[in-house]
């Protein structure tokens, strides 16, 4: 065990810091045209993706032709730390960069890679991920959106829900049922669907936090015709990709959970003393204890994540990584509520107010995105119990 990584990693970190300082989008241009949904690519985001791709900083672990530089896992970790520290988003289309493009690279045809994956990497096109349905949430394999082969085409009918960024995405990585007779995991395929295809209706689903900027949508598909060549991988083999997608997603996702928590704790440590000073002395002691527990959560999340990461880097297994999603999202939720409560009566305010330095209740509502999406905390506990602890189903 040691507190720092080796000199080579630190040299890599400094190289990226220097490049980042020269090439990052400015705070002003990001503020002038904010990304309002997960597949929204403002002009600065397109240019930023292209600069990172060309310089080999988009996915450092990949080869240069895919926007990388053959970096090792510890270097990638340092890279992600520096991006977060600088307050620069790696992408405004996380599903596209993190899940859709890698899945097409793994399973897609040359043509699909050329037309869909590479444009996503270069910031030219954005992608959404069509997974959940009204009747298929945690039990995704029960999805019923149908794709029927008709000559050289698929005809697709059905409905997706909780689809992030569909109102802005250029195309959808759509999971649909292609064999209704087969057992539920064995009749699913993935089809690439251009969002401009006739028959697609996107209805934004405003949430209780930030209703003015809906990210989640419902997607209705009515006799949507797409070329049969848009099938990704083999027919009825889509479930492997659902698992593969989540593996891509989980590779380093723990780190963003950790860093988000640490940033919020850092913010809290700035604002808390002034807010605490307004409380009655006895209230202050109780509230401060909650803040301390959030600080411990953040430190623990970092230590737990880095410990698992170190095991993986050494080629071992790291079962404790399965704990990270539920732990970081729930810790973030506790922190959001404590942060709002710091303002005592300020929990009635939607967001920060000029005379209150703390966040309002809005961030707490927003935190449910973390504990519900991509496998709810309850599903995470089932996974930990069954897959890690070996408890019977």
């Amino acid at each position, binding site marked *: 065990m040691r507190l720092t990584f080796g000199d080579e990693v630190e040299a890599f970190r400094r190289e990226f810091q220097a490049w980042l300082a020269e090439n990052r989008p400015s705070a002003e241009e990001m503020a002038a045209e904010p990304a309002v949904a997960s597949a929204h690519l403002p002009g600065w985001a397109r240019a930023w993706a292209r600069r990172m791709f060309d310089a080999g900083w988009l996915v450092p672990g990949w080869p240069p032709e895919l926007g990388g530089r053959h970096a090792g896992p510890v270097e990638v970790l340092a890279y992600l730390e520096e991006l977060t520290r600088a307050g620069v988003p790696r992408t405004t289309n996380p599903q596209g960069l993190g899940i859709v493009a890698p899945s097409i690279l793994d399973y897609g045809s040359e043509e699909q890679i050329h037309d869909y994956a590479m444009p996503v990497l270069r910031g030219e096109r954005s992608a959404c991920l069509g997974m959940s349905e009204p009747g298929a949430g945690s039990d995704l394999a029960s999805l019923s959106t149908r794709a029927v082969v008709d000559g050289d085409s698929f005809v697709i009918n059905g409905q997706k829900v909780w689809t992030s960024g569909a109102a802005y995405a250029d195309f959808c990585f759509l999971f649909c049922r292609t064999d209704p007779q087969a057992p539920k995991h064995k009749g699913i395929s993935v089809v690439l669907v251009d969002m401009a295809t006739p028959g697609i209706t996107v209805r934004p689903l405003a949430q209780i936090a930030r209703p003015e900027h809906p990210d989640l949508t419902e997607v209705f598909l009515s006799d949507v015709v797409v070329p049969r060549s848009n099938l990704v991988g083999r027919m009825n083999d889509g479930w492997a990709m659902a698992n593969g997608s989540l593996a891509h997603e989980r590779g380093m996702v723990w780190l963003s959970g950790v860093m988000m928590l640490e940033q919020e704790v850092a913010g809290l440590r700035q604002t*808390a003393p002034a807010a605490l000073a307004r409380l009655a002395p006895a209230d202050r002691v109780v509230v*401060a*204890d909650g803040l*301390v527990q959030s600080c411990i959560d953040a430190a623990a999340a970092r230590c737990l994540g880095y410990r698992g990461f*170190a095991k993986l880097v050494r080629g*071992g297994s790291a079962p404790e990584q399965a704990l990270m999603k539920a732990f970081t999202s729930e810790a973030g939720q506790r922190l959001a509520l404590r942060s709002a409560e710091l303002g005592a009566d300020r929990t009635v305010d939607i967001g920060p107010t000029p005379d209150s330095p703390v966040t309002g209740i809005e961030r707490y509502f927003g935190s449910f995105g973390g504990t519900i999406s991509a496998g709810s905390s309850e599903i995470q506990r089932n996974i930990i119990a069954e897959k890690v*602890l070996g*408890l019977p*189903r």
Partner: protein
Amino acid sequence: MDLELSEDEAALRDNVRSVLASICPPAAVRAVYEGKGDPAAVWARMVELDWPGLAVPEQHGGLGMGYVAVALVAEELGRAVVPGPLLATATQFVPLVRELGAESALAGDLLARVAAGELTGTVALAEGGRWEPDAVAANARETADGWALAGTKVAVLDGAGADEVLVVARAPGTAGAEGLGVFAVPRADLAATARTVVDPTLPLADVALDGLVVPAGRVLAAPGAAGVAEALDRAGQEATVALALGTVGACRVVFERTLEYAKVREQYGKPIGSFQALKHRLADMYLAVERATSLGYYAALTIAEDDPQRAVAASMAKAAAGECQRLVAHDGLQLHGGIGVTWENDLHFPVKRAISGDALYGNAVHHRARLARMLGFLPSEKHDGDDPEVVA
């Protein structure tokens, strides 16, 4: 930050675990609990293996191992619920002697005798349930015959059994970090009252100091000498993190036994571990154990590398270990059903070890309160001998 054990560290941990399984099997723990066993036998084997000198610098005949190694041993001691003087000697007594200047003849002699397996030791720090050196009220007055001590120390680990007790006291009229001193007192000279503790593998005693006169040759650090507060802080962190990891080690055993029990105990025709209510609780126990282990390793590293974060990290580790104990000891007992609360089941040994380990050197609440001050959420306290009040 690399928080995984290196090959050497893992080999040390495995070696210690297998030795402890042989010299301190569950039957030996039960014998101590039932007043039939003698921890001296375990200690004698440790002496043969040179374990007492684990943390003693090589120049004094010890193994001179770094703090990560010490912490890993402490975790294993908790895991196997090991009785005997190693914990107090290696994680409390030795660090404080070493920090106070191993150059002095007294310190060098104490360390050499520990390394030779001839001496066990402990530290008498806490008073009235408070563990921070600032809160020490026991005082030491210089007289013609030596230093006259007054006051009462509580919850001294091995306080009725260790050969030497390091007593922390301050010059009259001083407060806070000023005026602190440390005296090496043979236990035979002290009036120690053994407490009736729940875990006889962590025996505690209260020590009355009134009437004790310590000769000049037994002063490890005279009251007011430079660096005493810093030495107490550093040694206290070593003791705290060792207890944190020992507590986590005991919790891990409770968790592992409970998990195993949930897989084999059947009701309604299936293992109780197939019920979701229990699955989720076991997942939460697992998180609590891994969370506290990770913070414990991190704290051990900050001590080993003398990182400025070590005070915060040590308190976080101890708080997390205490929180882990509250969940895991409770759910371990609850999920075992009736069998877990029977004396004949071994589960209560690690449960009691974890509860006791949480209490020593400040429980979770104490360390969270310390953190509230260190992190700037609450102002520092005044120490005037009365109940502390938050300074507005």
